[in-house]
């Protein structure tokens, strides 16, 4: 299944709802657009809703780690919410759970950032 992403901006928070399969092919297609969007809107916090993300590999990890490092420099944060079972396996083995904030739902994540 192809990868699609829906973006929503709330103040300095970018919410991305990801769907489908996030692999090398998909990351190459969205990276630049994502960087531009974050730059243009001076984004400091990123919320990733992974409820409908069916697959992800190390390319997806690279994309997420890249944004995480970038936001850390701006004292921002990255929140992962509604993670699906297949993607959870990759997060567990890669240690991403240890460095990123995990919330059970999108509402919880937005509330945490004060933009619910």
């Amino acid at each position, binding site marked *: 299944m192809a990868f699609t992403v829906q973006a929503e901006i709330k103040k300095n928070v970018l919410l991305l709802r990801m769907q489908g399969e996030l*692999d*090398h*092919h998909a990351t190459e297609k969205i990276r630049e657009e994502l960087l531009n969007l974050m730059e243009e809107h001076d984004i400091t916090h990123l919320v990733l809703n992974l409820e409908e993300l069916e*697959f992800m*590999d*190390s390319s997806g990890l690279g*994309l997420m780690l890249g944004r995480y490092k970038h936001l850390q420099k701006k004292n921002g944060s990255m929140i992962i919410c509604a993670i699906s079972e297949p993607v959870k*396996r*990759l997060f567990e*083995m890669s240690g991403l759970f240890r460095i990123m904030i995990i919330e059970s739902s999108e509402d919880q994540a937005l509330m945490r950032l004060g933009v619910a």
Partner: protein
Amino acid sequence: MNNEAVFKFRSISENEAFARMVVASFIAPYDPTIGELTDLKTVVSEAVTNAIIHGYDGKNDQWVYMTLLMEENVLTIEVRDEGIGMSDIEEAMQPLYTTKPEMERSGMGFTIMEHFMDAVEVTSVSTQGTTIRMSKHLASVQAECH
């Protein structure tokens, strides 16, 4: 039921998804668990991505070869390219090691393959290519009685 299938496809990034679908289809008759299916799709994705971006350095007119072999209840996956090869396999397999940090590669590809499979074997010859051979015992597959 033993089975074997051999594929070759162009080194374009669209074929990462194709290769994942191939392995999922190949093992479908064995009734794998969702977890096994995810693990196998992930390792195939890693190996094929390596062939495309490292082996062939993004050149999209080359061939990637994939062999799937099911023997008793062990699945062996071989992904091979005829690209630049690796000079230091041990170093390449270290967690977080990457030659392409500018592409935001996480350096986790081999770590993922080793974690999700029972055995991973890499052979590589400089300028001739790399072969990744990995196998996994599938708990869901019943070995045939003889």
